[in-house]
């Protein structure tokens, strides 16, 4: 049973068909990487799935329910968490308050007017921070954190609504190689523990080939390949869009 099924998704900006008839599905607990050269339509595809853009046509079935064209917050309520390419947290709040905010929203308490927010769900928030290794920074202002740590806090926020699907747009953008590996290893561990499915885009091939269960490849708005690491590595069309002809991923995967 697939968690998310995307059917013939299309989106054009003026005359440019950014995403064209893209279809794929994510299985329960799957770690699915979406790759492709710059301008392939990854971010557009992503923003359609998380609700920031409405598709021109196509369906997106989340556990059987069509979510195409819903607002981001509605999609979140259906159990889809996300992280941003440029990490975004609430800079005027402490780290733990950032996570509490998500938990408060998940509990439907946004419009509560009396009991202080800081006293709500603190334990649960600390537990989430523990899991991403940020417990010790809980009471620091989130704007003081190093970028890699912000990414971890974002992950804790994204896990707050116990999502069945996690969308991560370039989770390791702007990070060093060591940090990159640690973060993805952490994500992988958490999603395996919790049985969450993950769709992520990524530019760093070593991360993709080391961690993804399955890879889909976009080029010029179209889905050109779908398979496991070995299949993608040997796919002639994929090689062509990345390297022209003749080269391989052999060097990229050490």
């Amino acid at each position, binding site marked *: 049973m697939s968690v998310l099924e995307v059917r013939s998704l299309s989106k054009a900006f003026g005359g440019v068909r950014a995403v064209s008839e893209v279809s794929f599905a994510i299985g329960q607990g799957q770690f699915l990487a979406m790759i492709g050269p710059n301008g392939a339509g990854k971010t557009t595809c992503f923003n359609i799935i*998380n609700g*920031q853009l409405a598709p021109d046509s196509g369906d997106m079935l989340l556990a059987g329910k069509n979510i195409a064209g819903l*607002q*981001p*917050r509605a999609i*979140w*309520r259906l159990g889809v968490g*996300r992280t*941003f390419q440029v990490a*975004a*947290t*609430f*800079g*005027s*709040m*402490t780290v733990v*308050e950032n996570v*509490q*905010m*998500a938990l*408060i*929203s*998940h509990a439907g*308490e*946004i*419009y*509560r*007017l*009396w*009991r*202080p*927010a*800081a006293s*709500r769900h603190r334990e649960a928030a600390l537990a989430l921070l523990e899991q991403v290794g940020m417990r010790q920074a809980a009471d620091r*202002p989130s*704007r003081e954190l190093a970028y890699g740590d912000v990414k971890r806090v974002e992950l804790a*926020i994204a896990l*707050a*609504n116990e999502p069945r699907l996690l969308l991560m747009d370039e989770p390791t953008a702007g990070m060093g190689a060591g940090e990159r590996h640690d973060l993805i290893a952490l994500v992988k561990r958490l999603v395996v523990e919790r049985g969450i499915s993950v769709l992520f885009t990524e530019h760093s091939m070593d991360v993709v080939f080391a961690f993804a269960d399955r890879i889909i490849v976009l080029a010029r708005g179209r889905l050109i390949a779908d398979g496991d690491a070995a299949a993608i590595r040997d796919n002639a069309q994929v090689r062509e869009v990345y390297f022209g002809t003749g080269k391989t991923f052999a060097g990229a995967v050490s």
Partner: protein
Amino acid sequence: MTFTGFLFQALNGLSTASGLFFIAVGLSLIFGVTRIVNIAHGSLYMLGTYIAYTFATRIGGALGFWGGIVATAILVGVIGALIEVVLLRRIYRAPELFQLLATFALVLIINDATLWLWGPEDLLGPRAPGLRGAIEVLGRQLPSYDLFLIVIGPLVLLALHFTLAGTRFGRLVRAATQDREMVGALGVNQAMLFTAVFALGAGLAGFGGALQVAREPANLATDLTAISDAFVVVVVGGMGSISGAYLAAVIIAEVKAICIGIGVVDFGFGSVNFSKLTLVAEFLVMAVVLIARPYGLLGRAQAVVRSIAEPEEPLRPATPALKALGAVVLALLLCLPLLAQSSPYLLILGIDVLIAVIFAASLHFIMGPGGMHSFGHAAYFGLGAYGAALLVKGLAVPMGLALVAAPLVALAGALLFGWFAVRLSGVYLAMLTLAFAQIVWATVFQWEELTGGSNGVIGVWPPPPFDRTSVYFLLTLALAVIAVLLLRRLLFAPFGYAMRAGRDSALRAEAIGIDVKRVHWLGFAVAGAVCGVAGGLFAFAKGSISPETIHINRSIDGLVMVLLGGIQTLSGPIVGASVFATLQDTVMRQTEYWRALLGLIILLLVLAFPQGIAGALAALWRRVKP
């Protein structure tokens, strides 16, 4: 009205449109390049009329008039360049709000300077030499000077268009409008460019003002009227778009002209005098355009300005020291009626300060945690005040009920206006809230049957025992304490956190299920309702309410109070309102030129204490006690 009469009105509208265009296009150009909304642009326009009057009367003749107009444009351009070099250069990297306030300070200073130089009387200039007559159009007499105005607008539009399209200066202006950082990175001397653009914009405003000298008397109220009109034109046309400015000027001028042309219409159930609805009509056009096209008819979405906002500390509950301080202040205030037996004025000052505290705290609620910089908070003050006063005078409602109704009336207004306002952000939000406040003011001013027009509502005195100042003071104190604690409670509750979350990162907030617009809308409504309490208390404290007490100056006072105290601290608005209201009641009453004094205080605040008093104290406290 006949069809030809209608056409004639439309022609009249075109001549007004030229005037609107001159001021709006300068505003738009300056904003495009420097990203500063120059509220003082209306003042430059006003200066233009005064200076041209002096040329036309002192030198006289065709040289004094026509030469004077050209000289005025140049002179106002030079004044603009001076303003840019001396003041604006220091605040290009300051938060938007500070820029708006700094230019508003200029409005106050220029107004008092004009008063000092030319006196308070309206000054009507001579008629234009060579264009004194009229020509017959559609069977009516159209002054030839109006015809001249109709033609000169499009001529200047064309000239500007070719300058921007064909010259190096024009290319730089267009490039800077799209991405000024990139223009700087390419080695263009930004300082020169900014000064030149500011001088050009100022010169255009001065030119527009000078042209009015033969049509309308120079008047000290022109600055704010002109800038509100220009805001509407620029917002409707699209910030930074020159053709948009002309298009919008025509639309607005035509809507006004047609309203005047229609006059009184009898609908059977009652008659409506459309000529009194010009202000409302103008702002309705703007509201409609903003909803359909948030960036104006020919405008584009603004490039994100990479400004550096001051980082804000997380909210912490009050420390025991702060609580103790609050208790001491409260105890002192409770004792004030005893202390004041020797000087009753102290209690009146106390009431003024407490009302200012409620006003500023409610404004801070949306400005600080909500990030919505309202330039029209006076609207809700006015709705509360008039709501209470009219209920008492019209329906003989008791004071208690009127004070309950005040926040409800303000709430209704805030729900309506807030729904539009939260759809925008930054300077657009500032201008829209200002426009709404103008609507409330204009309605109150023009609806004489209900509100008493410019005389206002008088004789709104509290019944015994509240007619004693000491008792009324205690009532005000009680409501102020409740209001401040309530707003504070809301800010610590999930709702307040959600408001800050939406401000910090709307994208992230939406991604965790927060309906940011809705949360901000409700926050706006709460602030409006609390502000209505201040308005109601004010009406009973003064025994009257008039349009001038709810004019734009009150909105700006609120902004100054919040910034004076410090926008990032919860105690800021309380400190700021207390200091400001005390200053206003003591120092400013001593001088005729209080506007200039207030302007200088604002400039000092913006340039020297951007954190405000409470903010500076808090920073000092952190440094002393790590």
